[in-house]
């Protein structure tokens, strides 16, 4: 399956990962607002993770059974990550405030 290992590619990806680590730390020194900082850090982390998975773990050249298993994993991972949304939407135990009833006319 992997007859000739691409040695140079491995070294290049390793170097790129180190550069991206430097960029992550440097971006942190700029003290962005939290939403922007989270976005930047996660984009860089996803890029680094993709490089590790595609090249070091040979995911760019795998069989369909592996892709199938990972697709299922990704689907369940997304479910896991969206579970926190239910804690926001959950209103059990929260007092319900009704608008004050309009005063009834006295007879």
């Amino acid at each position, binding site marked *: 399956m992997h007859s000739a290992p691409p040695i140079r590619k*491995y070294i290049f990806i*390793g170097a790129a*990962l180190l550069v991206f680590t430097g960029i992550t730390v440097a971006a942190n020194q700029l003290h962005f607002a939290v939403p922007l*900082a*989270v976005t930047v850090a996660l984009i860089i982390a996803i890029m680094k993770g993709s490089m*590790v998975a595609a090249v070091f773990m040979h995911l760019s050249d795998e069989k369909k059974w592996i892709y199938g298993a990972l697709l299922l*994993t990704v689907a369940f991972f997304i479910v896991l990550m969206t579970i926190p949304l239910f804690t926001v939407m959950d209103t059990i135990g929260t007092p319900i405030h009704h608008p004050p009833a309009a005063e009834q006319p006295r007879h």
Partner: protein
Amino acid sequence: MNIPYTVEERPDTGLANGRLGIWLFLASEVMLFGALFSTYIILRTGSVEWPHGELNVALGAVNTIILITSSVTMVMAWASLKLHNWGRHRLYLIATFLLAGVFLVNKYFEYADHFARGEGPAHSTFLAIYFTLTGLHGIHILGGMVVMLYFIGPGAKMWKSNPDQFANRIEYTGLYWHFVDLVWIFLFPVLYLL
């Protein structure tokens, strides 16, 4: 009894059994760490304030560099076997093992510093999830080191009797090791920087 399909591919899956096995194991690991990342999101979004700058960013960055370098040496250990260079393979595998050890030593100093200041897991919600995530990751590092030590020591003799199966075993060890690196790639910014 011979275990089938350790080197040759199964006709139905097109994969050696070990390869499918390690990927299914890694899929379960994704869910394990995913559950903890999900917990982190719940705790962070639910807290009134979240500490920033409590961790040593320099030490965290050094550990990131160490793990990335160890991923390169791990893949080179496998590539050396494919190129039938036993000496290089040994060198790279031992280097990976040592880098993993340095990572854990750094982590020990980091933990020791926290405990010396009375900042254990019970100190705050942030430190509770920090120790849980990094502790579990550290156990994975330790597990990887045990496997590597086996292949440096008694497991190495398989190279003479069945080199293809040995190369596959090193590749699966590498897949696990790269996954451990991948988890840290997300842990570092999430815990140290954000």
